[in-house]
């Protein structure tokens, strides 16, 4: 079930009305809270089963294992016992992930080396990477004593399956979300402005920009050898816009939908294409994943507090390589992660050795910032080629098109491409000027409420008139 479909509109309307008005009429506070949790859990299961009913069993199994493991870890007296239950949890979660997501990648690599033809007929359960990470961090946090286990199975189950962010994030931490389930929400407290702002913004990003601009990137990656230099740059730029608007659009809609039910999800993107270096880019892109990797992989590996710098860079590289692999079972994603890991290392080295030595005039500083932004963006765009291309060969062909002059069949820059790019650029670079931070500085909204209202109207108009005719699935569903 996709947020941008009429089916979701009906589903959510029913959920909203029952949640606030039917269950909200229960007088007893505890019973109301319990009823709402169970109802949202059932709604979340239905939401997931709309895609494939069988795989709900997988989520259920992981939920049961992690719920029990969490309790066992907490109640264990010895460190050895704690570790044992943590390992059970990790093996279960990573085992499922390895089998469903990586088995054919592994077999494909073996086939390439040995010439064999092994293949397992397996479907990748939608959102498995997201809910697995979410479920895992619950047991890890309990292991490190950061939180106590949930006493209520339904409460924990809802944390794992909460439908607004179940299939494509943001990845929520138990430590942030479970406390929200312990307090009764009130209709009067809903921040409708914020919810509408996020949902409509996400909808425009997805159906107006991402789905429409895909027409300029899809053909390039389908037949890269038939494109020239100009059209390849257009295609790669289009994909850079598409992936941002598609993914951040989903996150925005998830935040909006959750807000209408009284929940707060973390901001997942913060104008990443404004970044003037790769480190800042990763602070702004897919924040819930990058912070997850930082807290549960990079820091446990030793992080930056290591005896030698080289170990710091190793940790950084390992984190990015695994982060790349998290996105998909292909060497292309590993290369993508590796390139970003290398860039982060280079940036750290550069910052340490040179950056602080520069003294610029005001104009010089502006020129330096613009230059740094251009370099960062070109790097990010080039690496998206590996992210999007189906094979290394295709990626190499696209890069060759981009960086050596290739005849273009057509020298036109499509008007629709320019328009969609312009909307993104204007929103991305100038939108921030009109934003204010709200809700403990976690979310943003327009300062001027009347302008906000006008933008709601404009968003609805654009979605209805310019929304893509196809209901395309979100790119990150596949991860």
């Amino acid at each position: 079930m996709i947020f941008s479909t009429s089916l979701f509109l009906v589903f959510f309307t029913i959920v909203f009305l029952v949640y606030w008005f039917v269950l909200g009429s229960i007088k007893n506070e505890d019973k109301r809270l319990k009823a709402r949790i169970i109802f949202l859990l059932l709604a979340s299961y239905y939401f997931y089963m709309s895609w494939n009913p069988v795989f709900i069993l997988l989520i259920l199994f992981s939920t049961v294992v992690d719920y029990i493991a969490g309790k066992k870890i907490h109640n264990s007296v010895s460190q050895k016992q704690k570790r044992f239950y943590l390992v059970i949890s990790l093996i279960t979660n990573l085992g499922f992930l390895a089998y469903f997501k990586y088995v054919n990648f592994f077999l494909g690599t073996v086939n390439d080396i040995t010439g064999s033809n092994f293949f397992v007929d397996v479907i990748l359960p939608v959102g498995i990477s997201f809910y697995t990470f979410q479920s895992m961090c619950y047991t890890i946090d309990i292991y490190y004593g950061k939180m106590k286990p949930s006493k209520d199975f339904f409460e924990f189950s809802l944390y794992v399956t909460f439908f607004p962010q179940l299939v494509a994030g943001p990845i929520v931490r138990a430590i942030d979300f479970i406390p929200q389930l312990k307090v009764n929400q009130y209709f009067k407290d809903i921040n409708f402005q914020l919810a509408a702002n996020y949902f409509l913004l996400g909808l425009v990003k997805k159906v107006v920009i991402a789905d429409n601009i895909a027409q300029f990137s899809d053909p390039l990656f389908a037949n890269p050898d038939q494109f020239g230099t100009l059209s390849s740059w257009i295609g790669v730029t289009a994909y850079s816009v598409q992936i941002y608007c598609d993914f951040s659009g989903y996150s925005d809609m998830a935040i909006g939908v959750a807000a209408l039910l009284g929940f707060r999800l973390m901001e997942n993107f913060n104008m990443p294409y404004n970044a003037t270096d790769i480190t800042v880019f990763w602070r702004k892109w897919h924040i819930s994943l990058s912070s997850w990797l930082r807290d549960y992989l990079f820091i446990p590996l030793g992080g930056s507090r290591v005896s030698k710098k080289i170990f710091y860079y190793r940790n950084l590289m390992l984190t990015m390589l695994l982060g790349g692999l998290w996105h998909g079972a292909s060497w292309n994603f590993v290369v993508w992660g590796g390139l970003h890991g290398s860039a982060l290392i280079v940036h750290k080295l550069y910052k340490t050795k040179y950056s602080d030595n520069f003294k610029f005039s005001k104009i010089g500083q502006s020129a330096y910032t613009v230059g740094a932004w251009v370099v960062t963006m070109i790097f990010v765009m080039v690496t998206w080629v590996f992210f999007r291309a189906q094979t290394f060969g295709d990626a190499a062909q696209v890069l060759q098109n981009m960086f050596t002059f290739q005849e273009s069949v057509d020298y036109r820059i499509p008007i629709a491409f320019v328009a969609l790019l312009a909307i993104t650029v204007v929103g991305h670079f100038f939108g921030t000027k009109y934003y204010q931070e709200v809700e403990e500085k976690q979310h943003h909204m327009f300062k001027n409420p009347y302008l906000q209202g006008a933008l709601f109207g404009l968003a609805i108009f654009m979605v209805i008139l310019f929304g893509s005719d196809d209901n395309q699935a979100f790119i990150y569903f596949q991860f």
Partner: protein
Amino acid sequence: MKKEHRLFIIQLVIAVALFLGLSFMVKKAFMSDPKAQSYLEFNEGVKKMASSTYALVDSLIATNDLTFDPTSGKDIDKVLNNLKYTDNKKLLIVGSSQMRVVQGEEIQDAYQSLVSRKIERYNSKGYSTYNLSLGGMTTKEKLIMTTKGTEIINPERVLVSVTPWDCLSDKLRPSIKAIQGKTYASLEKTDEVVTKEATNTGSDEVFPLNINSQITETVDKIVEDNIDIYSKRAAIKTWLSDKTTKVLKGIKDGTEATEEVFKTNLPLYWFTVNQDLDNLSGWVSETAQSGKKSIKIVNKDPQNAKWLGNDIILDTPTDTFEFEGWSKAENVSSSTKLYCIDFQVIFEDGTSKWHYKGLTFNKGTHDWEKVTTRVRFDKKVKSIKPHVLFYGGTGTVWFDQIIAKPLYDGVLGDNVLPNSDFEEELKERQNVTYTYTTAEWKRIEQNMFAVVDHIAGLATKEQNVLLFTPFWHHNEKTAYPQKAQYNNLVETVKKYCEQKNVAFVDASYILTKDNFGIYTKGSVRDKIDVLHFNADAHEKLAKYIIKELNL
């Protein structure tokens, strides 16, 4: 009511008012255009076609008769699982979209017009055809589909269609890759009700989710019926796009652009490689021997720079030509290897030769200088390809009036090169063409050999077949403008088929322009579709195949 909620209600009022206002304005502007009706009709046609595609797949699955896949390979697994059983002889056809697209027709009616259906109807030997044709299958994909199709239906014969276009790429789509290692039950007579149950064990059986699609349809219909701008949105989007394009063209040209003309700022026919200028900047007005324009090469470093055109096929082959051309030079280095006009001529027997003798210009700096020569080859020439070269030197050169005139019985014919004076601009492309480098032609040939090897090795009862499918063949613009290379490919592959005992059917030129349609959507909208043909053409092709194979 909280202040924030009151404010939100005000925001909603503003939003609705703005939405209605914008909708009213856009719709009014659209409806006042005299062409609005045609946009609406076009929109209806597209919608009908889109829905009929899915309706068609569903109805074919329901009757267990799904033998082709109009969904670009998305449902190929489903297709393979739904191949029907027949007592007839079985002909497995594997090809690209040409074999499943009926250009210019509605898909539902078109299904019966497909070449596979026509073969089934017209042949006298009781063949059932199985058309496993997807959009743009590459060689690798064809080999996989041939293997899978043969495993399942155990056909008497296999026919694989090929074109240069689909034998160029080595791509493998994930949907086809995914079926590579899978095993499908082969069709035995006892399997009369083929795996229909197996394929329907999807979500509907386990969990009653069909209500979801009913909800979607109902809501979409309510929205469609009640929000006027929503139901007309595709038409309005196309209209807006056309309007914007026209306005921008008008601003750029300083004139009111018409729909028929689209300027490219590129010279017709000629293109340049290996130099500092491109097709845009190398076509200049700064100097010209005649008219206003010429072509230019700037070599800052010694490069093998040139301008060239495509092959020109002669209506009547001849052995004598008169070539001429003009050039102007500035600081052309003495180390320059070639600064000349050079013609690549292809003889009737397929061999070729380069000719630049008598067509070399002086180095250094000079104003417009003419070269001319008459040459008699020892064999008749069937096509020529012009090049103007500036190899291995530095400096700047301009060329103009590049002319090639054939002689027939001592009488000089007309110049055969298009846009010799470089005055003519490339207008809107009328069709899509496929031009390849020598290396690409080689790869195409190798891929075709791979297909021949593969089908020669299949354990079928009768001889398998390789088919060269038809394309739009027109003297000036054609799907494959390098006719010499194309014909050479046909001959080579034909010989290879003979060696491998594979039947060869060449249908390249059996159709006429009328058989090809116009793209109605996408980036090539309004262009001639040079590879897909209409129902009449499918019928012609089916009859041709039946005749050639004695089916």
